[in-house]
């Protein structure tokens, strides 16, 4: 009776009218799950938009209102950081572009409303990275401590450098020179994206809605970590269903072809449509049909589970199996076999030690000097 399921939460987004049917104890769990997935403010926005918010119990409205205040503050904070970063770096790089969450906020597009994220992602030309790092250092941004292994991993194989943290404000920045790791052999010529750069209303460089969508879906489907998969799928739904540009779909399909991510576009269209009923133009579906993978049944098994708001209160059967499969698939996509073997051995040793000796074995106690 007071149980909830991943489908209940997905349906709540797709058809906000179902909100009236929930018991208070169901709401309690739904709110925990949404908070865990950083989706409270996003659902609040959805409920307001669909006119159901005011009829919700005060218990829910209070938690949603809290999340809304925090998300609005988050947006203002990102706007502030964007100003600082742009002033510092725009003249020292060939290009300086905001990606993902930060660009959603800066774009004034509906996808940015109620969107919470833990770091600011930017794309700069690879040769400028060293320069950017030292400039940021002068402004109080410090490289986050990562293990020696991880640092080498970033520098040698990844498409980004280890995150940097603003020492007084706590903001974290991820500096990218590509959208996927070069070691995967799938890193596209970034020029394809650079051609799609536009200026946000306040004058920041961001990707056009179509390129933003492409990056969003590559980030989701060409990845081994889908902890935020459900949230990212909602982003895709909003990006795809609120665009007003008549060339949007055409540009999206062309970009997918230019960068070699047609399969990822196929998957994005498939799962947004299956989950939220996102409308995909017939022409696009037809064009993508030839990228339909042979192992679609297997992918359906994985993604129909992994792209849900997972939580101890809302867990699909076989979720852990799906998670493992996504992890393996993601690594397989990103690394050639010999590198993958080396990487898994190194990571495996660390995990095994933690499993045997406790998750925090390698950490110091905070109140011991």
């Amino acid at each position, binding site marked *: 009776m007071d149980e909830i399921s991943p489908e209940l939460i997905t349906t709540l987004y797709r058809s906000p009218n179902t909100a009236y049917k929930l018991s208070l104890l169901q709401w309690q769990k739904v709110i925990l799950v949404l908070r865990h997935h950083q989706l409270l403010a996003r659902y609040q926005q959805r409920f307001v938009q669909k006119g159901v918010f005011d009829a919700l119990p005060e218990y829910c409205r209070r938690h949603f209102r809290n999340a809304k205040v925090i998300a609005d503050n988050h947006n203002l904070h990102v706007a502030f950081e964007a100003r600082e970063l742009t002033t510092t770096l725009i003249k020292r790089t060939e290009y300086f572009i905001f990606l993902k969450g930060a660009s959603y906020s800066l774009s004034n597009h509906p996808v940015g409303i109620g969107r919470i994220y833990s770091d600011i992602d930017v794309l700069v030309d690879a040769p400028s990275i060293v320069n950017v790092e030292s400039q940021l250092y002068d402004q109080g941004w410090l490289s986050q401590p990562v293990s020696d292994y991880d640092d080498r991993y970033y520098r040698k194989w990844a498409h980004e450098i280890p995150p940097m943290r603003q020492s007084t404000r706590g903001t974290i920045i991820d500096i990218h020179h590509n959208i996927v790791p070069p070691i995967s052999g799938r890193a596209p010529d970034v020029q394809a994206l650079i051609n799609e750069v536009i200026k946000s209303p306040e004058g920041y460089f961001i990707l056009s809605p179509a390129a933003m969508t492409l990056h969003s879906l590559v980030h989701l489907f060409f990845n081994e970590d889908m902890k935020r998969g459900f949230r990212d799928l909602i982003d895709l739904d909003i990006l795809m269903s609120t665009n007003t540009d008549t060339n949007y779909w055409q540009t999206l399909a062309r970009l997918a072809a230019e960068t070699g991510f047609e399969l990822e576009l196929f998957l994005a269209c498939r799962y947004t449509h299956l989950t939220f009923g996102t409308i995909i133009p017939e022409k696009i579906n037809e064009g993508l049909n030839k990228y339909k993978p042979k192992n679609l049944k297997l992918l359906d098994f994985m993604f129909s589970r992994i792209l849900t708001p997972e939580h101890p209160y809302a867990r699909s059967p076989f979720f852990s199996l799906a998670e493992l499969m996504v992890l393996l698939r993601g690594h397989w996509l990103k690394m050639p076999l010999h590198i993958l073997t080396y990487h898994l051995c190194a990571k495996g040793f660390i995990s095994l030690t933690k499993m045997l000796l406790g998750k925090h074995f390698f950490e110091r*106690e905070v109140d011991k000097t």
Partner: protein
Amino acid sequence: MSSHFVLDLPPFSFAVHSDIAQVKSNLSIIYEQCLSKRDQQLVDYEISMVKSSGIRRFFRPQARFMCDQNEPFKPLDFQKSYAFLEWGMNWTVTAYEVQHLIIHSAVLAKGDKAVLFPAPSGSGKSTLTAYLAFNGWRLLSDEMALIIPNTRTVTPFVRPICLKNQSIDITKDLFPDGKFSDIAKDTHKGDVIHLSPPKTSWDAHKQNAELVAVVFPNYRADTDLQIYQLDKSQAFMQLVENAVNYSVLRNIGFSTLTNLIEGIQTFEIFHNNLSDVQAFLEEEVLVNG
């Protein structure tokens, strides 16, 4: 054996899960009537305080605080687990609740007139808080004053008083019948103990009060009571520093604090005698408030 409780602490409620005996025994000492077995109650937050996993639990065991699936702190030494849970609750409220301006401060009231006592560690604030709470005042909060935006109204959030180092022995002498938790040794604040406020404070835990003054207390062993009227702008800046969600509330935070500071008395006091302070508060501050 792990247990599931509900802590009903208006305006918030917590489901607490713990497998640590010390946590359970301290919760029942401190919270008594606010503590119940978890059943079908509606709660705001699910928190837990559990032993860390792995072989580690058999040697140098550690305690982990979780707020739902989120672990905001690194684990701590086992014997600090109850104090750690209290701080975890503070963290939870600070991280997610923005319907009030939250000031890191004690608030006590007599009738419905309340006084705010913000002060850093070591100023004797908590000793003063305990003294007043056991001498005719009621405690609204020891560490987190919840102010309704753009008013002078404080919503109580009654919790135990957190006493540190020397004040542990002082308060144990002063209130031998007080309900004290176990001592958490060597925390980042030194040795720490929690003291449950008297029944009158718990009974009035839904009764708001109106602020009439802010008093910054300083204990000085060699100083008889000295009272300084604080400049409004100085007092404002000190409150800003203590307002933990000031930056999140932005304009509302600013307007609440300016409105507050313009409407109440502002003092800084130095003292070596708690009853002098009480007399000053009752004969001067409340009368003029």
